[in-house]
């Protein structure tokens, strides 16, 4: 399916391009906008970004695959990112990851069948002082324990 930036995002992209002396530098910003619009970075998205920024498809692909936050496949409506790095691990982050895995019945980087949830084990998110934490889409939830994680999951399920 062909991808085109909607008008709002196209304007935003033009602003981002104006921040740099060369168009190519806007590639990360362009990919962020595309991901906001379509949820993930498809081949069509990369083609469009390459076209607009006068890059080759390979250059764009190189950027997409270098960074972990560009989704290379569709993720769930609620993308759960659980930090299991040292500071979180010391305060139970790894347990929370395992708990969510069991509860949703999915593995790392997988999506539930109803496309509601996806799970990712992430590296340090900068919440060490408020560990353990999970991020859901763009929001941080900090100072958690297992029962609070359950509450969060319940409330997300009910949100549908």
């Amino acid at each position, binding site marked *: 399916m062909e991808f085109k930036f909607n008008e709002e995002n196209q304007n935003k992209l033009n602003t981002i391009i104006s*921040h740099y*002396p*060369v168009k*190519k*530098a*806007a*590639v*990360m*910003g362009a*990919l*962020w906008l595309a991901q906001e619009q379509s949820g993930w970075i498809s081949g069509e998205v990369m083609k469009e970004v390459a076209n607009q*920024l006068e*890059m080759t498809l390979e*250059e764009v692909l*190189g*950027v997409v695959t*270098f*960074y*972990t*936050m*560009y989704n290379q496949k569709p993720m769930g409506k609620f993308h759960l990112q659980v930090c*299991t*790095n*040292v*500071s979180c*691990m*010391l*305060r139970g982050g790894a347990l929370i990851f395992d708990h969510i895995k069991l509860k949703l019945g999915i593995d790392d980087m997988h999506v539930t069948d109803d496309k509601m949830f996806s799970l990712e084990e*992430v*590296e*340090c*998110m*900068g*919440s*060490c*002082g*408020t*560990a353990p934490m999970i*991020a859901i889409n*763009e*929001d*941080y939830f900090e100072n958690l324990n297992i029962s609070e994680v359950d509450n969060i999951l319940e409330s997300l399920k009910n949100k549908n």
Partner: protein
Amino acid sequence: MEKIVLPDIKDLHLIDIYIHHGGFAAAKKAFTKTTDDIIDEVKKSGLRGRGGAAFLAGLKWSFMPKSTDKPKYLCINGDESEPGSFKDRQIFEYNPHQLIEGILITAYAIQAKIVYIYIRGEYHKWIKLMQKALDDAYARGFIGEKMKETFGTDFSCEVYIHKGAGAYICGEESSLMNSLEGQRGYPRVKPPFPAQNGLWGNPTTINNVETITNVPPIINKGWEWFSKIGEPRHPGTLLFGVSGHVNKPGVYELPTGTLLTDIIYKYAGGVPGDKKILCVIPGGSSMPPLRGDQLEGVKMDAESLKNAGSAIGTGGVIVMDEDTDLVKVLARIAHFYHHESCRQCTPCREGTGWLEKILKRLVKGEGSSSDLDLLISVATNIEGNTICALGEAAAWPVRFMVTRFRDYFEERVSKEVSLSVKNKVHSMRNTSIPLAPVTR
């Protein structure tokens, strides 16, 4: 005690409150001075970088070429991805305008017309907060063309935020530049250094968020005032992020040279259940860990920590109590660096994977005594053989943890190598006598 970077003022993130408390006076003062005076002032203050290497900020600025037609750039490093470090986000949230003011002064000092603040992608919320602060400052005429009128100067600069997308390595300055240019975030070979050949081949300076936030008070109150705070060789305050097994984890702004034990017991409330401390990593996960019995009298500044056998890094103190499984912790750290290696240099690409594999074997209880020597051997072969410092960052925790906690690790491994197939090595040798196929 005075706080420089995060003063206790309510709603300081609002531009009106910031101006009310003397905000942007330092910038105004700076624009009446020459650029050399400012660089000199910061050099004399002894301000050292807060991003990990603790390099003198003023000296770094003085590397920027004076006579050149090329455009100059300033990058503010807010990639903050070191496990155990969470200080920059406090600045974005609670004192963004002091950062902006510091940016204006620094940009003026090095004559950079364009400034990029590189913030890690995970900080969506903090990027929005910072963007709001920038918009407010633009609206008041503190940034952009209008600043000429506001400050009565002929200098102006533009400040943009560049959003990262999840790569630890982009906190390395040359990798940050590649990332900003729209390439994969591979570190560059140095020299040439960024001051000669940075963004798009132009002179560039890269400073940490916290470093730049320290600049306005230095210009306001003078280098002598700043150089008298904390340890003379590493003056000022540091944002210590305390995490792990402490009662009150969080960011504490304290003078350099504060005792590590004071940070843990006096400020962070000690260890839950009054347990003993097994291990402390004093500067973020890549710095050499200290044993619980090495902490007495250790001061938290670059020079003192070097003498104590570690390094200040980003000031992220990770505390582990006596019940911590150090093998698991080290395996997790090794996994992190394997995951974050950019795969450019062979020693790091392969070595970090080997470290992780061996440590995972140890976690499963299948390690042998020789594995500990193997860990040290692999780690020492990564160190110094890579383009950027991620090699050291991956090797240090392993090498120092295994050496300093050898007794602990020895207890977790068997003395002999056990193989799942009997005589496996021998049976795979070429021989004229056909051998039965090895079943794995």
